[in-house]
């Protein structure tokens, strides 16, 4: 009777005595805290995000490290890392530490915004398809299948080419394009969840009490899909960041993201002489972020997905 993974409040009276006093989220939280990799990932991620967003103004004030256009000082180009300039200087003599941190702002924003887009579109789409079912579901999911069939890179490049050159210099089209290819899987997952939930007793009970479709979806069904959505979203963020880096290597990414910095760093790696820090540091930051996000995502899945729950 008590379907695992359902909030206690959703089906009154169905709570087993033994679990009284612990909610699902508290359970999940407890499990997450026990997962060292996930906790470590979360901490690293927090530290990275704080460094990226708070670091540049602090470095400016405390250590005179800057990277705005007017701070370019080509006379100090390619200075190797040192105590005063921990990550060296770039090809125009700007502080590479500040540039990498600012690049992190872009990369993290791309990851988060594109993921939010995919969550918004995917959850709405999947929930509607799954809840109403029938012909509508059939049509909506075939559309998803069709879009799946198109290589995602092709879609992204298409979107980026449709918007003009001038708009492409801003990050918005990249956010949108990446979000729009990521929602497909989210829609499928949410639809599957909704499909199993919509015939459950608590939904029937709500319907018997006269709740509208919107209320049932929002109040009763979607909260139950939240775990899956959070897990999948946490894995989408790194996927999007990687995708953006890849676009950067093709010359289509967002200006000054980690991917772009690394791509430019690639240009100065050759058999003659390598300015290794230009490639190494953005790649390190990128890798650290991706590892943390993946560990955290895995931890979240373990914590929220009851099927892998430890006894």
């Amino acid at each position, binding site marked *: 009777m008590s379907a695992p993974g359902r909030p206690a409040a959703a089906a009154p009276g169905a709570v087993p005595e033994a679990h009284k006093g612990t909610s699902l989220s508290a359970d999940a939280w407890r499990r997450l805290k026990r997962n060292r990799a996930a906790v470590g990932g979360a901490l690293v991620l927090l530290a990275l995000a704080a460094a990226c967003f708070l670091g540049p103004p602090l470095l400016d004030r405390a250590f005179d490290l800057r990277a705005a256009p007017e701070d370019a000082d080509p006379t100090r180009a390619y200075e190797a890392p040192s105590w005063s300039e921990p990550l060296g200087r770039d090809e125009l003599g700007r502080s590479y530490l500040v540039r990498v941190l600012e690049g992190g702002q872009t990369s993290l924003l791309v990851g988060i915004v594109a993921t939010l887009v995919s969550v918004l579109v995917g959850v709405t789409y999947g929930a509607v398809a799954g809840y109403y079912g029938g012909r509508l579901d059939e049509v909506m999911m075939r559309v998803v299948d069709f879009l799946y069939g198109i290589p995602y890179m092709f879609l992204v490049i298409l979107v980026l080419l449709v918007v003009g050159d001038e708009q492409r210099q801003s990050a918005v089209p990249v956010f949108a394009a990446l979000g729009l290819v990521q929602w497909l899987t989210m829609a499928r997952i949410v639809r599957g969840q909704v499909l199993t939930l919509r015939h459950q007793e608590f939904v029937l009970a709500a319907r018997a009490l006269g709740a509208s479709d919107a209320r049932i979806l929002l109040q009763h069904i979607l909260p139950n899909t939240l775990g899956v959505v959070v897990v999948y979203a946490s894995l989408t963020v790194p996927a999007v960041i990687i995708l953006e880096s890849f676009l950067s290597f093709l*010359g289509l990414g967002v200006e000054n993201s980690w991917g772009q910095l690394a791509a430019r760093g690639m240009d100065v790696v050759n058999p*003659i002489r390598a300015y290794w820090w230009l490639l190494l540091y953005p790649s390190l930051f990128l890798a650290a972020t991706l590892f943390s996000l993946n560990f955290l995502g895995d931890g979240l899945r373990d914590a929220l997905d009851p099927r892998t729950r430890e006894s």
Partner: protein
Amino acid sequence: MARNLLGIGGVFAVALLLVGLTFSTTQEAPADFRFIAGAEPKTLDPHLMTGQVEGRYADALFEGLTYRDPETLEPRPGVARSWEISPDKKLYVFHLRPEARWDDGTPITAHDFAWSWRRLQAPELGSEYAYILHVVRGAEAFNAYAGHADLLESTVLPGLKALRADHPGGIPAPAWQRYVAKAHLNDAVKGTTDAPIQAALALKQGVLADPALGALEAALSAEAARRRAAAAHARVHFGVDEGIYARDDHTLVVELIAPTPYFLELTAFYTSFPVPRHLVEHPAHRDDWFLPEKIVGNGPFRLAAWRVNEKMRLVRSPTYWNRDAIALDVIDAFPVENSSAALNLYLTGAVDWNTNPPPLAIVDALRARYPGEYVLNPSMTVYYYRFNCTRKPFDDPRVRRAIALAVDRETIVRHVLRKGDTPAQHIVPYGLPGYEPPPSPLGLKVEEARALLAEAGYPGGRGFPEVKLLYNTLEQHKLIAETVAGDLKRHLGLTVVPFNQEWQAYQATTLAGEYDMARAGWIGDYADPNTFLDLWITNGGNNQTGWSNAAYDRLLWFAADPDRFLAEADAWLGRLAEPERARARIAAVSAAPDPAAQVEAKAALRMHLLREAEALLVTEVPVLPVYFYVNQNLVKPHVKGWHPNPQDIHPLRGLFVQRPEGP
């Protein structure tokens, strides 16, 4: 079971065979010489091309009346075996080689040249480079006059009527000048000798009213009619019995409007090359005769294969008249644009010549480690930014000058480029024979720049719109753009956003004038300042700034034939920046003891007129010169016949490979 296995094995064997066959057919003989060609060529039609990459192919696939000597770049007899020049240097008679052939075997005659130059100038073709041969009598009339007459009759005159109706008491000078710019009037009456029109164009103060206004209208109508008649005349006669024509199959006559010291060099330049009439006029090939499977040339090489983004293969032409002098049989050209990839191909020995500039980050290391192979030499090339002079706020010369005065060229050259380029305060590179550039007001003068910007209404950069700085995708353009953006932010408080486009999109954008500031470079086509200065004539195909200055156009028109200037010298001396120098040169012309000395004195006067034009250019600053390039090439030691020169032209016809005897 066994039969199934046999079936699977059979299918597998067939598949393997197919794969094998595919690979064996793509196996080609290795090339004698391989090089990095830069971008893919936009076209192979010599009349439509404008770029250096395309020019290299044109020199290989076609040949003009002359060709450039691989070492000195002086014109050598090409399709023309010999020529005579009249004493007044305005008439050239070329004697063509009877043995010259198109590579499909058709003989090349003088008619081919006359027809080709006519095609080049036909307004229907829309060649961006047609103006380079406007020194030929009737060429400009045929190429542009009908368009001028249309402009005058359909736009200028009705517009003038409307303007007159708006200002019944006479048109105030500012409104009139605005109208001149809007209606492209300078362009439509370029080179006119008509006094009322010239007076009106020069009007900067007061009011344009009757009777001058009536006279102007009449003069413009007359000018339109005159141009229409000249165009109609040229349409019938140019390339037939005027300007350029065949006296017989192997004798070609070219008439010039004025002595042109660089004319023979022009006959070695791709715009003047012949195109195969029998193919270009053929209804089935007219629109795509320049495609690789069809193209017919007359040069030392022919196109054997063109696989886009992979390579282009040139083979020695068996029909070329001088085929025995060509050393290379098979050449592969790789269209690699990425500088790291190109460098790696070179360092691993996959190519013999890398034309791509290596990544800036390592130029100093390359200089130290490959002194014999990394060849740096001053180039006849200027790197500059165009201002869009039709767009606010760049329509104000003070704004343009302020920006030009706030860019630190020295730092760009020394610390960003680091390969020994020369900071440019001019448009014409230093060292052209006979030319001394005018004093330039440009340079890094921050205080003056700030004052000018404030004077133009943007003190401290307040109220100045965000500037988009366009460049074509290349690492070094990006770095320079970022440095310039930093300079303008720091010194003037302007927000400049660099943004890039691929080469072809970039060309379309600048041609359409849809930019604020755009990066550009110009390689001199011949060793004369004219090749840099005639870019900026009103509506010149390569102007693309919208800048238009009647005095400038006029100075270049004078320079094309100093006699024109001598006829109007009295009226013009007062308008020159350095009238004393001009006067001295005029005196030298009249004092010349013999015709040869007179030709020389006129050449000196011509150089001074060009100097005056450049002085105007560096005051009005429609373009911001940044630096003069050094050419960079990586050439393997076994490549011989490769000579550094300022134009960075290394004809493939002169190259040969000589490897040291190995064990």
